[in-house]
């Protein structure tokens, strides 16, 4: 981060933007579980002080060799369409976010999670756990090999099905940049019916959750590729007219 502001104490801290109209409203009743879990009172503005502009820098010491290849974590290969999921982690200023931990989890090809609570009659795959980790390189790039997850039913409403998706968790370099999201696949007919995806009201923002089929990275006789770039908060671009008028706090 390069944008800083001079202050009474002399501490110069990076300034992060605050996302407006990007993230879903916490109370989005079409996703039923929000009704009893979304806070009802307005959020209180938290200034970006030292605890917010720093964050855990968790890197390669948490990663083992097969963590970014979900098809090689067992004795045999998992069933399903083998895919490569890759992309870059950037901030909104366009700067790469290097050396940052990504964690993913997903259902198997039949749409079943290896989780005790998931008991719908899609078969488990003994060769698939559905969990991956990696760290971005110096250009913010990451790459996973996995199988394409299946769609699965849930109980939100009658005949509710989640579109195929992969959960992504990212730290960035500051507490302000922490993000958990889901990546979707292009041309999935379930998108328009999905209460989670449509809680992102802005269409452009919603489309940023949908990966792009990537023929160039697709490997002959091996795997289809999808590209998914993730953009974390960058610097606050609000012009500083007069520091005394700054009422962020």
């Amino acid at each position, binding site marked *: 981060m390069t944008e800083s502001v001079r*202050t*009474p104490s002399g*501490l*110069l*801290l*990076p300034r992060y933007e*605050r996302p407006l109209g*990007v*993230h*879903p*409203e*916490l109370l989005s009743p079409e*996703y039923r579980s929000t009704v*009893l*879990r*979304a*806070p*009802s*009172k307005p*959020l*209180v*503005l*938290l*200034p*970006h002080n*030292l*605890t*917010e502009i*720093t*964050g*855990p820098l968790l890197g390669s010491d948490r990663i083992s060799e097969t963590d970014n290849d979900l098809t090689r974590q067992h004795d045999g290969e998992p069933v399903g369409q083998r895919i490569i999921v890759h992309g870059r982690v950037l*901030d*909104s*200023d*366009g700067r790469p976010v290097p050396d940052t931990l990504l*964690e993913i*989890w997903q259902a198997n090809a039949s749409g079943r*999670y*290896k*989780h005790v*609570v998931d008991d719908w009659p899609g078969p488990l795959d003994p060769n698939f*756990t559905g969990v991956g980790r990696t760290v971005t390189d110096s250009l913010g790039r990451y790459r996973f090999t996995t199988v394409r997850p299946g769609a699965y039913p849930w109980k939100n409403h009658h005949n509710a099905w989640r579109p195929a998706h992969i959960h992504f*968790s990212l730290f960035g*370099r*500051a*507490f302000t940049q*922490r*993000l*958990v999201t*889901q990546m979707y696949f292009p041309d999935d007919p379930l998108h328009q019916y999905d209460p*989670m995806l449509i*809680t992102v009201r802005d269409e*452009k923002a*919603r489309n*940023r*959750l949908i990966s792009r089929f990537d023929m160039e990275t697709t490997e002959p006789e091996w795997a289809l590729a999808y590209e998914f*770039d993730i*953009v*974390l908060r960058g610097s606050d671009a609000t012009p500083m007219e007069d520091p005394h008028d700054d009422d962020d*706090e």
Partner: protein
Amino acid sequence: MTTTSERLGLTPSQTVGPYLSIGLTWEDGPYVVPEDTPGSILVTGRVYDGQGQLVTDGLVETWQADPDGRFAHADDPRGAVESQLPGFRGFGRCNTDADGSFRIVTVKPGPLPTPDGDTEAPHLNVSVFARGLLDRVVTRLYFPDEAEANAADPVLNAVDPDRRATLIAEATPDGYHLEIRLQGENETVFFDV
């Protein structure tokens, strides 16, 4: 130097969903410091929904300064300082269990200077993730035995006085305990980060 027109659009948040524990559970998650660290404390808490039901499928993360109020992070303009405490990670993560409970083994952080010239009282930043939360919710944990520092804390002072108590943990024999109420009576104060 900011080229507003060329800024990239942010990636929206989505919920962790009900199966986060397969992806985000770390065996060493609760250990902000190694278990046998002298002076370590146990921070426990429980998470409730708007009907007072325990949230048993959530995840709590904490982030904090070390006891000297320092961060091993290059963006801290006072300099990135490795903690004197061996193995200090600053970061804790724990799933909520069948009892809605989480636990973090840590040390009390030091106070922190702010750009405005104030001092923030010792605190942990706390993020809660769960099914039904389309974005994380963020709160802070302050300490009950820091009354003077808490009274001068600019973040606490910006909170409605009737609600400040929701941010202050209770002392327990081996540390502190915080009840996090996502919604309803005594709703925890959550922050816009």
